[in-house]
């Protein structure tokens, strides 16, 4: 009996030790926590630094991998990343929002860790699902500003938060209007926003959005949210609205930009 007791005690302590040392996050207070380990902070800034080293500064052709709306599908996102990693012609990747399904801390961490497999730097724009729970705060910690711009090979990318329902706020059109103006001799300006203007989230603002794109003679606007690849001339004036497919559909999008023009292609894997 004594031996059995000793074995039970030993088993208990071994069990406790195994539990304690096997969990990456020892103590989780709630899925709804709103603070991230500093290791995950400012990822867009870090990737922009990496991108600087690749930026020629002049008008050279380059290729961008466009991903969007992974939501629940981190496994399929891994497959997309593996496919992108095989193609050395991509300079960087853009993720068009909905990095998470519920805006939970651990979802952001899963997304971040999955994207860490990507060989090239990536930049993100916030999606409507990323606003759920405390996602708004977590997104800002992990990726930074909701609205920002960067320039690569003399092409300006304008990343714009145009979510309205979950965010309960009006998109900052004043900022967007200023940033769309090509006053520095860029080869082109490319806006990227999660919601396409013809979606219900943009019901009140679709005319405003399109009017700004048209006024600045921007031929292409890139979006996510719809989960399917599409390339539409919605307003009949030649402006292309592209939506990027979700990894759920086992596709992503290749964006090729050169001084001669822009090509958008759906990639299946």
């Amino acid at each position: 009996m004594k031996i059995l007791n000793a074995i039970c005690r030993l088993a208990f302590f071994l069990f406790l030790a195994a539990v304690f040392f096997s969990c990456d996050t020892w103590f989780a207070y709630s899925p709804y926590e709103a603070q991230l380990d500093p290791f995950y902070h400012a990822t867009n800034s870090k990737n922009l630094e990496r991108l600087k080293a690749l930026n020629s500064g002049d008008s050279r052709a380059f290729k961008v991998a466009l991903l969007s709306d992974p939501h629940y599908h981190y496994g399929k996102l891994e497959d997309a990343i593996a496919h992108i990693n095989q193609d050395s012609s991509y300079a960087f990747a853009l993720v068009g929002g909905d990095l998470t399904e519920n805006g939970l801390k651990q979802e952001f961490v899963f997304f971040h860790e999955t994207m860490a497999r990507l060989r090239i730097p990536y930049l993100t724009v916030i999606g409507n699902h990323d606003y759920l729970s405390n996602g708004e705060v977590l997104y800002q910690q992990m990726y930074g500003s909701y609205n920002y711009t960067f320039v690569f090979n003399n092409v300006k990318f304008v990343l714009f938060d145009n979510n309205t329902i979950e965010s309960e706020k009006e998109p900052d059109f004043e900022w967007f209007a200023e940033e769309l103006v090509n006053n520095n001799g860029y080869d082109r300006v490319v806006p990227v926003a999660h919601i396409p203007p013809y979606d219900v989230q943009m019901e009140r603002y679709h005319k405003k959005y399109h009017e700004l794109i048209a006024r600045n003679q921007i031929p292409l606007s890139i979006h996510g949210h719809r989960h399917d690849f599409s390339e539409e001339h919605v307003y009949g004036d030649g402006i292309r609205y592209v939506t990027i497919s979700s990894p759920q559909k086992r596709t992503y999008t290749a964006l090729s930009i050169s001084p001669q023009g822009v090509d958008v292609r759906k990639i299946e894997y």
Partner: protein
Amino acid sequence: MLRSAVVIFLLGILFLHDMKVFGQSKDSTEARRWYVPGFVPVQYAGNIGFISTGVGYASRLRNYELALMYGYAPKSMAGAVIQTLTAKNTFPIIRYPLKNNEVLIPYLGLGVSFEIGGNAFFRMPSHFPESYYDYPKNLRFLAYGGAKVQHLFDDDFYGLRGVELFAEAGTIDLYIWYKVMSHEIRTNDIFSVAIGANFLLAE
């Protein structure tokens, strides 16, 4: 952090004291009424708050326990004030006697937890289009397993007949889904630890 823990622990003790007084006013030979709890759980972490406490009930055969708990996490610990209501259904697997008054009890459990601190919605806000989301975002299911050491006192001690110390590893429904759907997410990415005590109330 420590201050919050101490305050909540003292509140738990006060609650415990009330239970003791309530118990004393009854005839000791009378069977425990259905609503009088058998134990008071106090838990640290485990996806239901920084600290959680409530009331617990055990089946007569001791093969099922229900704990109804309120959990709290202060902004300083979780980045936001989090409040939860949780029902933990625990199933003791076996009882290993350790010594006279001590038993080791491994267990498994399933629970359901609602975040009630306004960090996620149960019913969609009115400005959302109809059927935009088809399930509550503040509802999470819990799965956990652990072990506890039960120590029974020789005589009732301040209204307690014993105490159980437990440690468990747990996860939530969503993380299990991510683990199943992803090659890269490891099992230990989805589990975290909780520790706590069940204060067993005297009859």
